[in-house]
């Protein structure tokens, strides 16, 4: 039996008093890839935000066990130090802060809180060289300000590059495929697949089946109105592509 990375039980969350998540149950084990699909407004991005610890979302019920920790009690940065990574749907620009400085700071803070020595400049550069090749990120982009002036595809590749640098236990990819052309999609998926191993897990949140041609999920969950209404294997994704979500919703009634 592989170990459980995250176990979400009856998770309810609201924003501005409006309930969005209405009882999510999901267990993800090491070595697994879970895809969460669903129509717009079903709560996909809310789920990723709540797991990452965004303040504007209020958890009203339920619990989340993450590697034996009460995830909901942790600050966003503490979650990151424990290996939770969110690849943003809309990566944020930070003018004047170089990508390298940003990552070096992130690694140093993590090391500090883990009681480890900060990574040396030499090792850091080695790591950058190795990991940037994964997503074919050019030197020019590495040294530019975080996401500033990046194209949509470059931003997403930069997210996966950061993921590679931080070596998370649980990666949540929030609509990483949106705005990507087919080449970028392949590069991103290749990065994710390379980073996948028996010790970590991935949650892929997506609207389309397309990404799942490249990142093969072990489980596919359908989210609707704040609940997981169906779980299946990769063939479910293909079925959704063909038939849409309506037939599932009809079944509910």
């Amino acid at each position: 039996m592989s170990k459980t990375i995250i176990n979400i039980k009856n998770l309810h969350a609201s924003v501005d008093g409006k309930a969005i998540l209405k009882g999510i149950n999901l267990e993800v084990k090491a070595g697994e890839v879970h895809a969460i699909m669903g129509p717009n407004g079903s709560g996909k991005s809310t789920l990723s935000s709540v797991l990452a610890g965004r303040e504007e979302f209020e958890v009203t019920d339920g619990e989340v066990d993450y590697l034996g920790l009460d995830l909901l009690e942790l600050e966003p940065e503490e979650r990151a130090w424990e290996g939770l990574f969110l690849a943003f749907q809309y990566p944020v620009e930070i003018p004047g802060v170089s990508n390298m400085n940003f990552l070096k700071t992130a690694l140093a803070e993590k090391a500090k809180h883990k009681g480890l020595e900060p990574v040396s400049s030499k090792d850091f550069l080695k790591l950058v060289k190795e990991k940037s090749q994964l997503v074919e990120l050019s030197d020019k982009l590495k040294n530019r300000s975080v996401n500033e002036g990046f194209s949509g595809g470059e931003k997403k590749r930069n997210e996966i590059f950061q993921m590679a640098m931080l070596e998370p236990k649980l990666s949540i990819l929030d609509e990483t495929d949106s705005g990507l052309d087919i080449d970028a999609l392949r590069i991103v998926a290749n990065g994710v697949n390379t980073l996948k191993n028996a010790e970590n897990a991935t949650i892929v949140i997506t609207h389309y089946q397309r990404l799942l041609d490249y990142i093969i999920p072990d489980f596919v969950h359908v989210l609707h109105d704040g609940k997981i209404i169906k779980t299946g294997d990769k063939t479910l994704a293909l079925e959704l592509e063909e038939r849409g979500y309506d037939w599932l919703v009809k079944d509910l009634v």
Partner: protein
Amino acid sequence: MGMKYTEEDLKEELKTKEYEFGFTTDIESDRAPNGINEDIIRFISAKKEEPEWLLEYRLNALKVWQKMVEPEWAHVTYEKPKFQDISYYSAPKKKKELKSLDEVDPEILKTMARLGISLEEQKKLTGVAVDFVIDSVSVATSFKEKLGELGIIFCSFSEAVKEHPELVQKYLGTVVPTGDNFYAALNSAVFSDGSFCYIPKGVRCPMELSTYFRINDSGTGQFERTLVIADEGSYVSYLEGCTAPQRDENQLHAAVVELIALDNAEIKYSTVQNWYPGDKNGKGGVFNFVTKRGICYKNSKISWTQVETGSAITWKYPSCILKGDNSIGEFYSVAVTNNYQMADTGTKMIHIGKNTKSTIISKGISAGNSHNSYRGLVKIGKGATNARNFSQCDSLLMTDRCGAHTYPYIECENSTAQLEHEATTSKIGEDQVFYCKQRGISEERAISLIVNGYAKEVLNKLPMEFAVEAQKLLEISLENSVG
């Protein structure tokens, strides 16, 4: 050994006690009695053994000042200083002349260390010549010999008056005339000390010249006077930084800095200012009313770079008079206000010569309940054919309670001028902070990263070692400030 209490010691002690209770009009006294009048001016001048012409300069300034009123146009509110309750002169307790930096008071070294720059480090690593101004009197000057070989004069203002009176007399008050403004007039009457720098023709000063200021004695106003003269074809980079220890009462600081860049000369003047800003409730803090101005002759250049994080009230407009053809003026500024600080700062670029160019980059950062104003004037005179100016004024808000204000003035009398102005106001993004946190960067570090990124264009203009200090200052000044 030698610890026996003797009659001599007793005498010594009694003398000191007497001192303590103050015979303050005594010329031997370390401190002038409170207030300002002709006698006080004479006291200061006598104390400093000044020549007659300088006493006359001061007395004239007093007359001019007495006819002026404190200006009220700036976007700041404060209780006006009671000018008769201030002591206008204080010297450090009797100290022998220092030959080496090792002899400097450990307390001073401690303050320096808090800024991340110890003297030892400075000496060793940066080759910076440091001239201290501790409560208005210089107590240490270094690297003088090395500079001397090149004919560079870098000393306290008082020393310059004694050793190089002809230079001081020729240039003092030529850029900031006595009657220029209320604070400049006050300074001209009572200035205590400051720095003087002269770079001879064609000499490129091989090191950054640096002065550190701090206020020590309770209730002592600081009236620094700085004069920098770059003779034809010379170059100098001058650093000014200050720290003030915590205190409760308001302190008046009214400095005057005059820069003179003769033909083909270049002066780079950098400031990191972190006077005590007052406490969280806006109590205390330094009132900083500064007049800084430079004049550029033909093909010369003056560049002001400032990082302002301190003071309860800041009133400061480092300016350039572009008198000579093809001269260049630059102003790069980061001004941070937090809690109840108020800053009204900016620049004036006065284009007189042909083909003159000026650049203004101002980055305001407001936090807490503070108010941060940019006030600038770009003036193109009739004869300033082909003058060019680029101004960029950005404001970053850290909270919903603070204010950012921009007052750009343009007066243009020549139609060939090209003027560009850009301005932005943004609130520090919660999205940016969350993004950093998600990568494991704590809120405090995140804010410092974001703010330093925002201010980078200006920080990049500072000499390396100063830039590091400035970054630290921004970080300290903005601790726990988002909301």
